[in-house]
């Protein structure tokens, strides 16, 4: 592990550090936060000061505190949805590639169908009748996203399944488990890890958009998208409070992008040698 980190370029290390910092702040939000999440501690849209590092929000709550709690929700929901979507998408994708035949056809055509409706629109249709509670949000986001993960895993595994070494395993009549976990997975790891990062960013953007449209996280909870929504009116008067979550999202996204780029570049440079 330490040699792995030593060989990483500086940009990837910086990305890794920032990502860790954000997750740390999400986990310890309650400990770090200087005020209560919903406490009104000042007047409306105070500028940044030593008491309020990022100023106050549209009804006088501490913006830094709101950002910590909002970040906790955003990161928690995005992580949960990504993990769910990955487990479902990758297991089904690999199984379809290895098994082929009707299972592959059934799964692939169903995924084509779900993907023929734009994700945001599908989510809006479902959210027009379902209450936007946390489990519903996570499930809807995970379901829609798992179609993308399925496609990736199906195609990555599809490229591997035609290799001669898979034929060698087939000639021994190896089981599905060995084939997936010993023959395919070790060769598919890098693109999958990189894709995990990309999907996570996508989930963050997706949840923020839903919340911004008023269809995601509901008060009194908050997330970064909702903070933008609450403070957007201030922008017209030149008050940049709404840009704080924007900057947070951008920094997190860029950090994860840098790590993902590095993981992906290792796929091409590493041809099995571990020198």
């Amino acid at each position, binding site marked *: 592990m330490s040699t792995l980190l030593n060989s990483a370029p500086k940009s990837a290390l910086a990305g890794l550090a920032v990502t860790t910092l954000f997750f740390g702040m999400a986990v310890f939000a309650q400990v770090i936060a200087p005020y209560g999440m919903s406490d009104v501690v000042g007047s409306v849209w105070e500028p940044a000061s030593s008491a309020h590092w990022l100023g106050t929000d549209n009804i006088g709550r501490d913006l830094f505190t709101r950002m910590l709690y909002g970040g906790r929700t955003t990161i928690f929901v995005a992580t949960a949805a990504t993990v769910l979507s990955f487990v479902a998408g990758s297991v089904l994708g690999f199984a379809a590639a290895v098994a082929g035949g009707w299972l592959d056809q059934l799964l692939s055509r169903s995924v084509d169908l779900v993907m023929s409706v734009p994700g945001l629109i599908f989510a809006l249709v479902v959210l027009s009748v379902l209450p936007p509670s946390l489990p519903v949000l996570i499930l809807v986001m995970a379901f829609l996203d798992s179609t993308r993960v399925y496609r990736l895993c199906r195609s990555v595994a599809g490229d591997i399944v035609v290799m001669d070494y898979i034929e060698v395993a087939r000639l021994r009549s190896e089981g599905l488990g060995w084939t997936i976990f010993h023959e395919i997975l070790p060769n598919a790891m890098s693109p999958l890890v990189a894709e995990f990062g990309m999907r996570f960013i996508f989930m963050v953007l997706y949840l923020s958009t839903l919340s911004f449209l008023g*269809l995601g996280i509901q008060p009194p909870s908050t997330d970064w998208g909702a903070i933008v929504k609450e403070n957007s009116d201030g922008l017209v008067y030149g008050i940049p409070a709404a840009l704080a979550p924007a900057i947070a999202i951008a920094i997190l996204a860029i950090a994860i992008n840098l790590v993902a780029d590095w993981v992906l570049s290792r796929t091409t440079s590493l041809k099995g040698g571990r020198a």
Partner: protein
Amino acid sequence: MHPVLKLLMQRMALGILLLIASSILIFCGTLVLPGDVAQAVLGQSATPEALANLRHDLGLDQSAVQRYFHWVNGILHGDFGKALSNGADISHSISLRLGNTLFLASWAAAISIPLAITLGILSVRFRNRWPDRVISIFALATTSVPEFILAYLVMFVVAVKWRWLPPVSLINDTMSVGEKLQATALPVLVLVLVVLAHMMRMTRAAILNVMESAYIETAVLKGLTGFQVILSHALPNVIAPIANVVILNLAYLVVGVVAVEVVFVYPGMGQYLVDHVSKRDVPVVQATGLIFSSVYILLNTMADLIGIISNPRLRNPK
């Protein structure tokens, strides 16, 4: 029949099939609610009469299959039904807003597509040199923020700090095209930024992918210049992937407008959809959802058709 023609017909038939399937999916999407739509719409305190009336209006006394065919039959006759919230005719409301949304999306497309392809080619020609680096940093930055945030950033800088343009985009039918363009400059700019980076990156990736081929080496060894190699040897082979990327982004534009319209208070389809999702106005949501999906499917089908036509192996069989 020519094999290409056959493939094209097959692909078009698939498009129609997807359209039908997506209408079922959108229809079923509103059935997932455990319990009763009417109850959910009106809330726990609704009177039994109000519930019964709404059930009748929604046709909930009929089976789901009957309602589906009723709904589709209406759409085929240009009738999307009436909105629950205010009883307005949905077809009429949509006809006003669809034009506005398409206006926005087409301007964004007209600017971003040629720009993206040109920049993509430039970044291949000068790959790993400064033009390529600048372009890829810009791409990373714009794909890392959701479009609504990009919209606020642009609004904050251009409209509030510099005061060049109004922060909201109110338009009406009495405005000339020029006036409309000025009023929508900000949302168009945001949409261009949203799709430009992705299109450019994918164009670059598609060309670079082909640049590894042996026939590119052949072209270089014929003593062609860098641009000659890209334009006459790489480009003809990446028409399909580039068309795919362009159209995928057009489709993305159509969806991306939702958030941007809300930010700039622009009277388009996206704004209309979002308003009615929060009002739980199921018929409106279904109608707009179906229209968005149709455009999306239409565009994706077109991408595949272009892919088939541009493939020399398919056009000229052995």
